[in-house]
């Protein structure tokens, strides 16, 4: 008896994408397993964030095909992608600073309708006790770590099948980074596929299942994260290790 191969959660097939005449992703192809944490790594300008933006419909591919659970989503609108279960936490500050924590969460569920959103907000807040305590505070009054937690919480309201997260550790203390990584690990264990870009590569590889390395928008490596962590060449190329000096 032959086993049916598992359909990958995300498929990039020969994707070319970028800005106007400047293409950042060049014939990029890769697959992401369901329920895995996949780390995108590579030097600056390799196209890591562009992968997330293209997957979330912020950039339209000029060529190629993107699939989610076997269904073509190339060029789909963000509303459609949200409805299909893709949530995106971009790099940087993404809150509405003059609105309260509750109002920020409420807007996170704007595609769900008020009833569902209000039912889910308490569930999401259970992940973030510090944010829960400050539910009526203005988002701008939260610390950097709390703000990032709120951003992730807002994305979780959608109960996403796929969570795209760009540089979650920026501006966070090492303890808070570990909290965020633990949360991502927990989400993946509950079936959410996480595709992450993270500058803190060593820590991220420890929680990741797979790693995809890009260079000039092309795939240069796709391996289990554990193997990558112990590979000295990869450390030199992507983890900031010193290059061996010539004698």
């Amino acid at each position, binding site marked *: 008896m032959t086993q049916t191969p598992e359909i990958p959660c995300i498929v990039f097939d020969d994707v070319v994408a970028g800005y106007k005449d400047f293409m950042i992703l060049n014939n990029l192809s890769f697959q992401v397993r369901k329920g895995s944490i996949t780390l995108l790594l590579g030097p600056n300008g390799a196209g890591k964030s562009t992968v997330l933006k293209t997957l*979330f419909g*912020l950039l339209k591919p000029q060529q190629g095909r993107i699939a989610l659970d076997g269904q073509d989503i190339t060029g789909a609108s*963000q*509303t459609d992608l*949200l409805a299909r279960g893709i949530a*995106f936490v*971009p790099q940087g*500050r*993404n*809150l*509405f*600073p*003059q*609105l309260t924590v509750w*109002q920020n969460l*409420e*807007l*996170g569920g*704007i*595609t769900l309708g*008020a009833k569902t959103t209000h039912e889910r907000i308490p569930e999401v807040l259970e992940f973030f006790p510090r944010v829960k305590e400050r539910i009526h505070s203005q988002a701008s009054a939260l610390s950097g770590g709390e703000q990032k937690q709120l951003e992730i919480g*807002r994305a979780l309201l959608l109960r996403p099948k796929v969570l795209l997260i760009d540089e979650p550790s920026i501006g966070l203390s090492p303890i808070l980074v570990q909290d965020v990584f633990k949360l991502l690990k927990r989400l993946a264990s509950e079936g959410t596929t996480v595709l992450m870009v993270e500058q803190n590569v060593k820590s991220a590889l420890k929680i990741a299942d797979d790693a995809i390395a890009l260079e000039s928008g092309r795939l240069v490596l796709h391996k289990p994260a554990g193997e990558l962590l112990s590979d000295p060449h990869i450390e030199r190329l992507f983890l900031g290790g010193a290059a061996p000096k010539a004698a």
Partner: protein
Amino acid sequence: MADFFQLLFSGLATGSIYALAALGFTLLWQASGTINFAQGEFVMLPAFAMLAFASFGMPMPLSFFLTIVLAIAVLGWAFKRGIVDPLFRYGMMQIVVATIGLSIAMRNGVRLTGAEAHPFPSLFADRIYNIAGVTVTQSDIGTLVLAMLLVIGTQAFLARTITGRAMQAVAQNTESASVLGINVPRMIFYTFAINAILACAAALLVTPVYLAKFDMGESLGTKAFFAAVIGGFNNSRGALLGGLIVGVGENLAAAYVSAAYKDAVALALFMVVILFKPQGLLGRKEERKV
């Protein structure tokens, strides 16, 4: 003392109309980074539209309703699609110049139909009340109450409804709003539509006093702009405060300094605020993105 309170009250009534127009400035600025220097003409045009509908024998409420529909289409949708959207990518200065050009075009376009002032029916009876020695007109009371209700109603809509919050979200962080699935173009259009509705309401309240004339929006637009800056361009409550300060300030200056300086009050207050609190009385300091 009775004179002072009388001046204060009529100043508040005038100021509330400035606040309506100033609120339009702040809404457009927050939602789309647009400064509309044709805001005064956006009040003048509905006044003429209402008179045109009324000239066909339509009652004033129906004329007002039809004017609102027309204003949403022309001053809301067409203004956004025809001027703001195409110029947005080139920066704010281009939009500013375009709206100055638009104001000149609108003023002179209406002037082609005649330069004379047309009387405009007032919503309120010509009654005078004496309250504790202070004489106030029904028109002042009605104008103040209606304008305040509109400003407070707009703020309540923005603060208490999910659509209003989504509009605020777009104003505060457009990219994030888009990522959450908020329909950004629609929210920006709603802002333009609300501005058009407020302009119609301001026309209804101000035209009985100013009379419908091609240049009636010139001074109103300038004072509303000053009021918005004084209150804080990025705060809709600031528009209300700025409008009332300008209205009261120019009334008091006309009575206690000289009527000749009345129109200079808004400019003087504007300059003081720009020098000492450039973000406005209720405005927030904003970081400039590089």
